[in-house]
């Protein structure tokens, strides 16, 4: 009777049970060869375990652990603290928008009849939409009044026809609907997904810091950011195109000629304008104000701070710090690690933006 070879390994590891174990032990007692082979395998396994034991406690380099944990934090599945119905806000908001649009259409149809009497000065229908509030209807400050929103002429107003009045009301509604869009480009709410996520919304143009400028222009060195304000202001401008187009051409040309970036709000472009003109009343105050984003002189301090930013999930700042580290010491032995961390931070930023 031959000994099943695989049972030898099972027996060696104590995985043979019950009837199979008894049968195997019986065969062992009857076969000298089997006993010899088993003893040899046991001795080999013992030696191998001794040989493995001296490296069993060797840990991998600490940098692997750091990189992995940073990635684990950056990519941790998001914990939702909001109630379930709020977690679906990504769906609720578009649904509300559609509902609002549908309501507008319904109102528009219902307003057809009352609008026939709109010419009577005191007979405003309760269904007639109230004139848009000045803050919403008017374009953002810093822009010339668009012709459609200009104040009526002082002379006797011509009596408009029903169709003309309807068109005018529609224009007013469209304008009031457009105005919040233009305004939202200046507010942090312009990026709702980021605001809903764990990552803080990206700083608005008014709060832009040198570190943010570094992030936006990765191919440019840090020193070039203040000297070239246009790229830094490019991003907010894109969202403002509709509102900006309301400005009459002369106003835009004048702004372009003066070298200032045409922005709806003067305050929004203040840091860039400050750099461009070099004569801002707030310059002294800004210089005195302690800036958290000033890079520490010591590389080790900067590295520590970058690491702290990573731990605290301040991806923008961490990326800026790592970029600065790489700029300062591109040939450092830690450069590869910094590049990894920078890539992680950038990836986390992208993820949070999505």
């Amino acid at each position, binding site marked *: 009777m031959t000994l099943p070879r695989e049972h030898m390994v099972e027996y060696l590891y104590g995985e043979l049970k019950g009837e199979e174990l008894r049968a195997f032990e019986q065969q062992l007692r009857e076969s000298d060869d089997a006993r010899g082979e088993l003893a040899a395998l046991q001795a080999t396994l013992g030696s191998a375990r001794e040989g493995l034991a001296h490296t*069993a406690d060797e*840990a*991998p380099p600490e940098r692997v652990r750091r990189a992995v944990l940073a990635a684990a934090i950056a990519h941790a599945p998001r914990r939702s603290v909001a109630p379930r119905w709020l977690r679906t806000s990504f769906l609720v908001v578009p649904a509300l928008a559609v509902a609002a649009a549908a309501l507008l259409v319904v109102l528009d149809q219902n307003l057809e009849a009352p609008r026939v009497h709109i010419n009577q000065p005191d007979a405003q229908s309760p269904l007639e939409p109230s004139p848009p509030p000045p803050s919403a209807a008017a374009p953002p400050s810093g822009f010339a009044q668009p012709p459609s929103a200009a104040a009526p002429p002082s002379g006797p107003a011509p009596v408009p026809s029903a169709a003309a009045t309807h068109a005018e009301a529609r224009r007013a509604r469209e304008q009031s609907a457009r105005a919040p869009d233009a305004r939202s480009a200046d507010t942090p709410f312009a990026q709702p997904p980021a605001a809903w996520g764990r990552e803080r919304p990206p700083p608005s143009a008014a709060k832009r810091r040198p570190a943010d400028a570094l992030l936006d222009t990765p191919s440019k060195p840090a020193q070039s950011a203040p000297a070239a304000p246009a790229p830094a202001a490019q991003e907010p401008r894109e969202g403002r195109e509709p509102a900006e187009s309301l400005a009459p051409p002369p106003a835009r040309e004048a702004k372009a000629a003066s070298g200032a970036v045409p922005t709806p709000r003067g305050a929004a472009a203040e840091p860039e304008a400050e750099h461009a003109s070099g004569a801002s009343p707030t310059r002294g105050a800004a210089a005195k104000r302690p800036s958290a984003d000033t890079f520490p002189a010591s590389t080790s301090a900067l590295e520590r701070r970058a690491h702290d930013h990573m731990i605290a999930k301040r991806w923008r700042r961490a990326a800026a710090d790592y970029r600065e580290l790489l700029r300062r010491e591109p040939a450092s032995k830690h450069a590869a690690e910094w590049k990894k961390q920078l890539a992680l931070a950038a990836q986390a930023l992208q993820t949070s933006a999505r």
Partner: protein
Amino acid sequence: VLSNEALMLAYQRGDATAFAELVTRHEKPLWSFFRRQVRDDAVAEDLLQETFMRVIHGAVSWRPNAKFSTWVYTIARNLCIDHARKQTHRRALSLDGHVASEDDSSPRLHERVAGVDRGAEHDAQNRELGARLDRALAALPHEQREVFLMREVLELPFAEIARAVDASEPTVKSRMRYALQRLREALAESAPAPARAAAEVEP
């Protein structure tokens, strides 16, 4: 003590400390496994990091119907195979690279450097045995080496190894037995002269 699966579920809920605990539990076995599989610390480091990265990226879709350790070690094993495939195309040996020849019994550079301060005889013997084992493992066929390391370093049961390497359990046990037989021969050949003489005298 929370199981690996419970920790992974906690990480799925956003608890990064749970993942740190998983790293603590598995980094050493994986490090040992990679070093013996690829015999290059720099590559082992990359593979170790890549393994955890894949776990991180796969965390969202992970379901607790499979054992966490099997999943992780399967990832590690696949990375080793990918690396071995790449290596067949460019067989460049590093300065510290080990040539698996029979008459080469000299310790590697890092072993010599690290062993300078250790004077204990037992420690030196273990180190010597470890070096001989590493060489013997390097000479094993890949399938036998991975089964041996999964069992002895990663401490996976044979059933889990079979799942990880996509083979039947008897096949895995058979590979293990062949691995032990080859190791026995290799260790006997590379044993120091007095020990070899003693082994030859013994029946």
